[in-house]
Protein backbone atom coordinates (compact mmCIF):
# COMPACT_ATOMS: atom_id res chain seq x y z
CA UNK A 1 0.00 0.00 0.00
CA UNK A 2 1.13 3.57 -0.58
CA UNK A 3 0.02 6.96 0.67
CA UNK A 4 -2.90 8.52 -1.18
CA UNK A 5 -2.00 11.73 -3.00
CA UNK A 6 -3.92 14.75 -1.71
CA UNK A 7 -5.81 15.13 -4.97
CA UNK A 8 -7.06 11.52 -4.75
CA UNK A 9 -8.14 12.09 -1.16
CA UNK A 10 -10.04 15.24 -2.09
CA UNK A 11 -11.70 13.36 -4.94
CA UNK A 12 -12.80 10.62 -2.52
CA UNK A 13 -14.41 13.25 -0.29
CA UNK A 14 -16.21 14.77 -3.27
CA UNK A 15 -17.47 11.45 -4.61
CA UNK A 16 -18.48 10.32 -1.13
CA UNK A 17 -20.66 13.37 -0.56
CA UNK A 18 -22.37 12.95 -3.93
CA UNK A 19 -22.95 9.26 -3.17
CA UNK A 20 -24.45 10.09 0.22
CA UNK A 21 -26.66 12.77 -1.33
CA UNK A 22 -27.87 10.32 -3.96
CA UNK A 23 -29.06 8.03 -1.15
CA UNK A 24 -30.76 10.84 0.74
CA UNK A 25 -32.02 12.95 -2.14
CA UNK A 26 -35.03 14.20 -0.17
CA UNK A 27 -32.79 16.21 2.14
CA UNK A 28 -30.81 17.62 -0.75
CA UNK A 29 -33.91 18.68 -2.66
CA UNK A 30 -35.27 20.73 0.24
CA UNK A 31 -33.46 24.04 -0.54
CA UNK A 32 -34.43 23.82 -4.20
CA UNK A 33 -38.08 23.28 -3.32
CA UNK A 34 -37.93 26.23 -0.93
CA UNK A 35 -36.44 28.38 -3.69
CA UNK A 36 -39.11 27.49 -6.22
CA UNK A 37 -41.98 27.83 -3.74
CA UNK A 38 -40.89 31.25 -2.45
CA UNK A 39 -40.41 32.75 -5.89
CA UNK A 40 -43.71 31.31 -7.08
CA UNK A 41 -45.61 32.77 -4.17
CA UNK A 42 -44.42 36.31 -4.81
CA UNK A 43 -46.71 37.06 -7.77
CA UNK A 44 -49.60 35.50 -5.86
CA UNK A 45 -49.02 37.72 -2.85
CA UNK A 46 -48.27 40.98 -4.67
CA UNK A 47 -49.46 41.48 -8.20
CA UNK A 48 -49.74 39.47 -11.41
CA UNK A 49 -48.77 42.57 -13.38
CA UNK A 50 -45.55 41.62 -15.19
CA UNK A 51 -44.23 45.16 -15.57
CA UNK A 52 -44.44 45.71 -11.80
CA UNK A 53 -43.01 42.29 -11.01
CA UNK A 54 -40.10 42.91 -13.34
CA UNK A 55 -38.99 45.80 -11.13
CA UNK A 56 -38.45 43.53 -8.13
CA UNK A 57 -37.86 40.23 -9.99
CA UNK A 58 -34.05 40.19 -9.82
CA UNK A 59 -34.03 41.04 -6.14
CA UNK A 60 -36.62 38.40 -5.28
CA UNK A 61 -34.70 35.65 -7.08
CA UNK A 62 -31.52 36.69 -5.29
CA UNK A 63 -33.09 36.83 -1.81
CA UNK A 64 -34.71 33.44 -2.33
CA UNK A 65 -31.44 31.93 -3.55
CA UNK A 66 -29.56 33.34 -0.58
CA UNK A 67 -32.02 32.00 1.97
CA UNK A 68 -32.23 28.62 0.22
CA UNK A 69 -28.45 28.26 0.36
CA UNK A 70 -28.45 29.27 4.00
CA UNK A 71 -31.05 26.59 4.71
CA UNK A 72 -28.69 23.94 3.36
CA UNK A 73 -25.65 25.10 5.33
CA UNK A 74 -26.70 23.74 8.69
CA UNK A 75 -26.27 20.16 7.50
CA UNK A 76 -22.89 20.78 5.86
CA UNK A 77 -20.65 19.54 8.67
CA UNK A 78 -23.02 18.41 11.42
CA UNK A 79 -23.28 14.74 10.46
CA UNK A 80 -19.56 14.28 9.88
CA UNK A 81 -18.65 15.83 13.21
CA UNK A 82 -21.31 13.93 15.14
CA UNK A 83 -20.36 10.49 13.83
CA UNK A 84 -16.61 11.03 14.26
CA UNK A 85 -15.70 11.16 10.56
CA UNK A 86 -14.30 14.66 10.96
CA UNK A 87 -11.87 13.50 13.68
CA UNK A 88 -10.50 10.98 11.23
CA UNK A 89 -10.13 13.66 8.56
CA UNK A 90 -8.25 15.90 10.97
CA UNK A 91 -5.92 12.99 11.79
CA UNK A 92 -5.64 11.67 8.23
CA UNK A 93 -2.32 13.39 7.57
CA UNK A 94 -3.89 15.06 4.52
CA UNK A 95 -4.18 18.86 4.42
CA UNK A 96 -7.58 19.44 6.00
CA UNK A 97 -8.19 22.58 3.91
CA UNK A 98 -8.18 20.57 0.67
CA UNK A 99 -10.55 17.95 2.03
CA UNK A 100 -12.92 20.66 3.22
CA UNK A 101 -12.68 22.50 -0.11
CA UNK A 102 -13.73 19.27 -1.84
CA UNK A 103 -16.59 18.96 0.62
CA UNK A 104 -17.73 22.53 -0.03
CA UNK A 105 -17.47 21.92 -3.79
CA UNK A 106 -19.72 18.87 -3.49
CA UNK A 107 -22.12 20.86 -1.33
CA UNK A 108 -22.25 23.59 -3.96
CA UNK A 109 -22.91 21.11 -6.76
CA UNK A 110 -25.82 19.73 -4.73
CA UNK A 111 -27.36 22.96 -3.44
CA UNK A 112 -25.94 25.95 -5.33
CA UNK A 113 -25.82 24.67 -8.90
CA UNK A 114 -29.50 23.60 -9.00
CA UNK A 115 -30.47 27.13 -7.94
CA UNK A 116 -28.42 28.59 -10.78
CA UNK A 117 -29.95 26.21 -13.31
CA UNK A 118 -33.50 26.87 -12.12
CA UNK A 119 -33.08 30.64 -12.03
CA UNK A 120 -34.19 31.41 -15.62
CA UNK A 121 -37.39 29.45 -15.03
CA UNK A 122 -38.28 31.14 -11.74
CA UNK A 123 -37.08 34.44 -13.22
CA UNK A 124 -39.49 34.12 -16.12
CA UNK A 125 -42.29 33.67 -13.62
CA UNK A 126 -41.33 37.06 -12.22
CA UNK A 127 -41.23 38.73 -15.60
CA UNK A 128 -37.48 38.84 -16.12
CA UNK A 129 -36.72 39.27 -19.84
CA UNK A 130 -34.55 36.69 -21.61
CA UNK A 131 -31.76 39.30 -21.98
CA UNK A 132 -31.30 39.23 -18.21
CA UNK A 133 -30.94 35.42 -17.93
CA UNK A 134 -27.24 35.34 -18.65
CA UNK A 135 -26.39 37.97 -16.07
CA UNK A 136 -28.76 36.43 -13.53
CA UNK A 137 -27.14 33.01 -13.91
CA UNK A 138 -23.60 34.33 -13.90
CA UNK A 139 -24.19 36.46 -10.81
CA UNK A 140 -25.83 33.53 -9.01
CA UNK A 141 -23.00 31.22 -10.07
CA UNK A 142 -20.44 33.48 -8.41
CA UNK A 143 -22.75 34.32 -5.52
CA UNK A 144 -23.75 30.79 -4.51
CA UNK A 145 -20.12 29.65 -4.80
CA UNK A 146 -19.00 32.37 -2.42
CA UNK A 147 -21.88 31.64 -0.10
CA UNK A 148 -20.99 27.95 0.13
CA UNK A 149 -17.41 28.83 1.06
CA UNK A 150 -18.23 31.58 3.59
CA UNK A 151 -21.03 29.41 4.93
CA UNK A 152 -18.52 26.60 5.36
CA UNK A 153 -16.47 28.79 7.69
CA UNK A 154 -19.61 29.68 9.65
CA UNK A 155 -20.66 26.03 9.82
CA UNK A 156 -17.20 25.11 11.11
CA UNK A 157 -17.38 27.74 13.82
CA UNK A 158 -20.87 26.77 14.99
CA UNK A 159 -20.56 23.00 14.72
CA UNK A 160 -19.37 22.70 18.31
CA UNK A 161 -22.34 24.73 19.55
CA UNK A 162 -25.53 22.95 20.40
CA UNK A 163 -28.40 24.34 18.34
CA UNK A 164 -25.99 26.48 16.37
CA UNK A 165 -28.32 27.17 13.43
CA UNK A 166 -29.53 30.55 14.72
CA UNK A 167 -25.97 31.57 15.40
CA UNK A 168 -24.97 30.37 11.95
CA UNK A 169 -27.49 32.67 10.27
CA UNK A 170 -26.42 35.63 12.40
CA UNK A 171 -22.80 34.94 11.58
CA UNK A 172 -23.12 34.37 7.85
CA UNK A 173 -25.89 36.78 6.77
CA UNK A 174 -24.00 40.05 7.37
CA UNK A 175 -21.01 38.68 5.49
CA UNK A 176 -23.02 37.79 2.42
CA UNK A 177 -24.97 41.08 2.17
CA UNK A 178 -22.49 42.43 -0.44
CA UNK A 179 -23.33 39.44 -2.65
CA UNK A 180 -27.02 40.28 -2.48
CA UNK A 181 -26.41 43.95 -3.24
CA UNK A 182 -24.02 43.42 -6.16
CA UNK A 183 -25.93 40.44 -7.54
CA UNK A 184 -29.36 42.02 -7.72
CA UNK A 185 -27.79 45.28 -8.89
CA UNK A 186 -26.12 43.50 -11.82
CA UNK A 187 -29.44 42.03 -12.92
CA UNK A 188 -31.15 45.39 -12.58
CA UNK A 189 -28.47 47.19 -14.61
CA UNK A 190 -28.71 44.60 -17.38
CA UNK A 191 -32.48 45.12 -17.59
CA UNK A 192 -32.04 48.91 -17.61
CA UNK A 193 -29.69 48.57 -20.57
CA UNK A 194 -26.51 49.45 -18.64
CA UNK A 195 -23.39 47.32 -18.58
CA UNK A 196 -23.42 45.02 -15.51
CA UNK A 197 -19.64 44.53 -15.65
CA UNK A 198 -18.91 46.51 -12.47
CA UNK A 199 -21.00 44.53 -9.96
CA UNK A 200 -20.11 41.25 -11.70
CA UNK A 201 -16.40 41.94 -11.36
CA UNK A 202 -16.87 42.74 -7.70
CA UNK A 203 -18.75 39.46 -7.26
CA UNK A 204 -15.93 37.62 -8.98
CA UNK A 205 -13.35 39.32 -6.76
CA UNK A 206 -15.24 38.29 -3.61
CA UNK A 207 -15.56 34.76 -4.98
CA UNK A 208 -11.84 34.34 -5.56
CA UNK A 209 -11.01 35.81 -2.18
CA UNK A 210 -13.37 33.34 -0.50
CA UNK A 211 -11.96 30.48 -2.58
CA UNK A 212 -8.36 31.22 -1.66
CA UNK A 213 -8.70 32.14 2.02
CA UNK A 214 -11.84 30.17 2.86
CA UNK A 215 -10.32 26.67 3.18
CA UNK A 216 -7.65 27.94 5.58
CA UNK A 217 -10.20 29.65 7.82
CA UNK A 218 -12.58 26.71 7.58
CA UNK A 219 -9.99 24.13 8.60
CA UNK A 220 -9.01 26.28 11.59
CA UNK A 221 -12.69 26.50 12.55
CA UNK A 222 -13.24 22.76 12.16
CA UNK A 223 -10.21 21.93 14.31
CA UNK A 224 -11.79 23.95 17.11
CA UNK A 225 -15.12 22.30 16.40
CA UNK A 226 -13.84 18.75 16.94
CA UNK A 227 -12.17 19.69 20.24
CA UNK A 228 -15.41 19.64 22.18
Amino acid at each position, binding site marked *: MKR*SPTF*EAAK*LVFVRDLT*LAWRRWDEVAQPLIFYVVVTTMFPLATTPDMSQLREIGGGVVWVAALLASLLALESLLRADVDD*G*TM*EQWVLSGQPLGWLLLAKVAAHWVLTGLPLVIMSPIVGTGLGLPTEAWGVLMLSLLLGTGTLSMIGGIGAGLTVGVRRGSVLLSLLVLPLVMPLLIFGSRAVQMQMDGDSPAGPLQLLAAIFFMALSLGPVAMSAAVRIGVES
Partner: protein
Amino acid sequence: MAFDGALFEARGINAWRGDRHILRDVSFSVRKGEFLKITGPNGVGKTTLLRVICGLLPAETGDIYWRGKSVRSHRDEFNLELGYLGHLNSLKADLTARENLKFLAGLRQSLTARDIDATLDRVGILSRGDLPARSLSAGQKRRLSLARLLLADAALWILDEPVTNLDTAGIELVESLIVDHVGRGGLAIAAAHQRLLDDAPCLRRLELEP
Protein backbone atom coordinates in the same frame (compact mmCIF):
# COMPACT_ATOMS: atom_id res chain seq x y z
CA MET B 1 10.93 -4.30 10.92
CA ALA B 2 8.13 -2.20 9.52
CA PHE B 3 8.25 0.61 12.04
CA ASP B 4 11.89 1.19 12.83
CA GLY B 5 12.87 3.40 15.72
CA ALA B 6 9.31 4.19 16.73
CA LEU B 7 9.19 5.78 20.16
CA PHE B 8 6.44 7.68 21.84
CA GLU B 9 6.87 9.93 24.84
CA ALA B 10 4.53 12.18 26.78
CA ARG B 11 6.05 14.53 29.35
CA GLY B 12 4.20 16.40 32.06
CA ILE B 13 0.76 16.52 30.45
CA ASN B 14 -1.76 18.74 32.25
CA ALA B 15 -5.25 19.16 30.83
CA TRP B 16 -8.48 20.77 31.95
CA ARG B 17 -12.07 20.05 30.92
CA GLY B 18 -14.04 23.15 31.77
CA ASP B 19 -12.96 24.06 35.30
CA ARG B 20 -11.83 20.56 36.26
CA HIS B 21 -8.15 19.78 36.31
CA ILE B 22 -8.33 16.26 34.89
CA LEU B 23 -4.84 15.22 33.89
CA ARG B 24 -2.19 16.14 36.45
CA ASP B 25 1.36 15.83 35.30
CA VAL B 26 0.97 12.61 33.31
CA SER B 27 4.24 11.30 31.88
CA PHE B 28 4.95 8.01 30.18
CA SER B 29 6.73 6.51 27.22
CA VAL B 30 5.99 3.63 24.89
CA ARG B 31 8.66 1.85 22.91
CA LYS B 32 8.23 -0.29 19.81
CA GLY B 33 6.74 -3.64 20.56
CA GLU B 34 4.91 -2.38 23.62
CA PHE B 35 1.24 -2.19 24.43
CA LEU B 36 0.28 0.38 27.04
CA LYS B 37 -3.04 -0.16 28.75
CA ILE B 38 -4.53 2.85 30.49
CA THR B 39 -6.90 1.97 33.30
CA GLY B 40 -8.83 3.90 35.89
CA PRO B 41 -12.41 4.60 36.97
CA ASN B 42 -14.96 6.37 34.75
CA GLY B 43 -14.39 10.07 34.33
CA VAL B 44 -10.75 9.92 35.37
CA GLY B 45 -9.62 11.26 32.01
CA LYS B 46 -8.68 8.26 29.90
CA THR B 47 -10.44 9.55 26.80
CA THR B 48 -9.12 13.05 27.46
CA LEU B 49 -5.59 11.70 27.61
CA LEU B 50 -6.00 9.80 24.35
CA ARG B 51 -7.47 12.84 22.61
CA VAL B 52 -4.63 15.01 23.89
CA ILE B 53 -2.15 12.48 22.50
CA CYS B 54 -3.82 12.62 19.09
CA GLY B 55 -3.89 16.39 19.12
CA LEU B 56 -7.69 16.54 19.10
CA LEU B 57 -7.61 18.36 22.45
CA PRO B 58 -5.04 20.92 23.49
CA ALA B 59 -2.99 20.20 26.61
CA GLU B 60 -2.53 23.06 29.07
CA THR B 61 1.12 22.21 29.51
CA GLY B 62 3.32 19.32 28.53
CA ASP B 63 4.90 17.98 25.39
CA ILE B 64 4.52 14.92 23.24
CA TYR B 65 7.43 13.46 21.34
CA TRP B 66 7.30 11.03 18.46
CA ARG B 67 10.55 9.50 17.26
CA GLY B 68 12.33 12.06 19.43
CA LYS B 69 10.72 15.08 17.75
CA SER B 70 8.11 17.32 19.29
CA VAL B 71 4.71 16.58 17.79
CA ARG B 72 3.79 20.25 18.07
CA SER B 73 6.13 21.13 15.20
CA HIS B 74 5.81 17.86 13.25
CA ARG B 75 2.05 17.37 13.36
CA ASP B 76 1.61 16.01 9.82
CA GLU B 77 4.43 13.47 10.10
CA PHE B 78 2.93 12.26 13.36
CA ASN B 79 -0.60 12.03 11.94
CA LEU B 80 0.63 9.88 9.05
CA GLU B 81 1.82 7.26 11.52
CA LEU B 82 -1.13 7.53 13.88
CA GLY B 83 -4.20 5.32 13.81
CA TYR B 84 -6.99 6.45 16.11
CA LEU B 85 -10.01 4.36 17.05
CA GLY B 86 -12.26 6.63 19.08
CA HIS B 87 -15.38 5.65 20.89
CA LEU B 88 -17.29 6.94 17.86
CA ASN B 89 -17.06 4.50 14.97
CA SER B 90 -16.75 7.18 12.23
CA LEU B 91 -19.08 5.25 9.95
CA LYS B 92 -21.68 6.53 7.50
CA ALA B 93 -24.93 4.65 7.97
CA ASP B 94 -25.94 5.07 4.32
CA LEU B 95 -22.72 3.67 2.87
CA THR B 96 -21.93 -0.02 2.63
CA ALA B 97 -19.12 -1.51 4.70
CA ARG B 98 -16.85 -1.56 1.64
CA GLU B 99 -17.65 2.05 0.75
CA ASN B 100 -17.03 3.19 4.30
CA LEU B 101 -13.52 1.75 4.12
CA LYS B 102 -12.92 3.06 0.62
CA PHE B 103 -13.93 6.62 1.46
CA LEU B 104 -12.29 6.91 4.88
CA ALA B 105 -9.26 4.62 4.94
CA GLY B 106 -8.68 5.63 1.30
CA LEU B 107 -7.80 9.14 2.45
CA ARG B 108 -4.62 7.73 3.92
CA GLN B 109 -3.71 4.80 1.69
CA SER B 110 -4.39 4.00 -1.95
CA LEU B 111 -6.56 0.93 -1.54
CA THR B 112 -7.47 -1.80 -3.99
CA ALA B 113 -10.64 -3.85 -3.72
CA ARG B 114 -8.43 -6.78 -2.70
CA ASP B 115 -6.95 -4.86 0.25
CA ILE B 116 -10.44 -4.05 1.46
CA ASP B 117 -11.73 -7.62 1.08
CA ALA B 118 -8.68 -9.09 2.83
CA THR B 119 -9.16 -6.72 5.76
CA LEU B 120 -12.89 -7.34 6.00
CA ASP B 121 -12.09 -11.04 6.06
CA ARG B 122 -9.51 -10.51 8.79
CA VAL B 123 -12.09 -8.85 11.08
CA GLY B 124 -14.69 -11.47 10.16
CA ILE B 125 -17.33 -9.41 8.33
CA LEU B 126 -16.49 -10.17 4.70
CA SER B 127 -19.99 -11.52 4.08
CA ARG B 128 -21.44 -8.18 5.25
CA GLY B 129 -19.30 -6.14 2.87
CA ASP B 130 -22.14 -4.89 0.68
CA LEU B 131 -24.64 -4.17 3.42
CA PRO B 132 -25.19 -0.56 4.46
CA ALA B 133 -23.52 0.18 7.78
CA ARG B 134 -26.90 0.97 9.34
CA SER B 135 -27.91 -2.67 9.10
CA LEU B 136 -24.80 -3.96 10.88
CA SER B 137 -24.98 -4.84 14.54
CA ALA B 138 -23.08 -2.72 17.10
CA GLY B 139 -20.34 -5.33 17.29
CA GLN B 140 -20.03 -5.57 13.52
CA LYS B 141 -19.72 -1.79 13.31
CA ARG B 142 -16.88 -1.97 15.80
CA ARG B 143 -15.23 -4.64 13.67
CA LEU B 144 -15.60 -2.40 10.63
CA SER B 145 -13.84 0.40 12.54
CA LEU B 146 -11.06 -2.03 13.36
CA ALA B 147 -10.76 -2.78 9.65
CA ARG B 148 -10.33 0.94 9.03
CA LEU B 149 -7.59 1.05 11.65
CA LEU B 150 -5.79 -1.89 10.02
CA LEU B 151 -5.94 -0.28 6.58
CA ALA B 152 -4.35 2.91 7.92
CA ASP B 153 -1.10 0.95 8.27
CA ALA B 154 -0.07 3.20 11.17
CA ALA B 155 2.81 2.59 13.57
CA LEU B 156 1.04 3.98 16.64
CA TRP B 157 -2.43 2.77 17.52
CA ILE B 158 -4.55 4.81 19.90
CA LEU B 159 -7.58 2.78 20.96
CA ASP B 160 -10.39 4.15 23.10
CA GLU B 161 -12.30 1.23 24.63
CA PRO B 162 -11.63 -1.01 21.61
CA VAL B 163 -13.67 -3.97 22.83
CA THR B 164 -16.94 -2.12 23.46
CA ASN B 165 -19.89 -4.13 22.05
CA LEU B 166 -17.67 -7.02 20.99
CA ASP B 167 -18.40 -10.66 21.78
CA THR B 168 -15.82 -13.08 23.17
CA ALA B 169 -14.54 -13.89 19.69
CA GLY B 170 -14.33 -10.17 18.97
CA ILE B 171 -12.26 -9.52 22.09
CA GLU B 172 -9.92 -12.31 21.07
CA LEU B 173 -9.72 -10.71 17.63
CA VAL B 174 -8.71 -7.35 19.11
CA GLU B 175 -6.12 -9.08 21.29
CA SER B 176 -4.63 -10.93 18.34
CA LEU B 177 -4.59 -7.75 16.23
CA ILE B 178 -2.71 -5.89 18.97
CA VAL B 179 -0.25 -8.74 19.50
CA ASP B 180 0.40 -8.89 15.74
CA HIS B 181 0.82 -5.15 15.56
CA VAL B 182 3.33 -4.86 18.39
CA GLY B 183 4.99 -8.03 17.07
CA ARG B 184 5.69 -6.13 13.85
CA GLY B 185 7.36 -3.40 15.88
CA GLY B 186 4.30 -1.18 16.26
CA LEU B 187 3.07 0.59 19.36
CA ALA B 188 -0.39 0.51 20.87
CA ILE B 189 -2.01 2.60 23.58
CA ALA B 190 -5.49 1.62 24.73
CA ALA B 191 -7.94 2.74 27.36
CA ALA B 192 -9.88 -0.26 28.59
CA HIS B 193 -12.00 -1.39 31.52
CA GLN B 194 -12.32 -4.98 30.47
CA ARG B 195 -9.72 -7.70 30.42
CA LEU B 196 -7.48 -7.06 27.48
CA LEU B 197 -4.20 -8.94 27.06
CA ASP B 198 -3.78 -9.01 30.83
CA ASP B 199 -1.07 -11.67 30.80
CA ALA B 200 0.74 -10.73 27.60
CA PRO B 201 4.47 -10.00 27.85
CA CYS B 202 4.12 -6.84 25.76
CA LEU B 203 1.69 -5.27 28.25
CA ARG B 204 2.49 -2.25 30.37
CA ARG B 205 0.00 -0.46 32.52
CA LEU B 206 -0.72 3.14 33.33
CA GLU B 207 -3.17 3.65 36.15
CA LEU B 208 -4.84 7.06 36.21
CA GLU B 209 -5.97 8.17 39.65
CA PRO B 210 -8.68 10.69 40.34
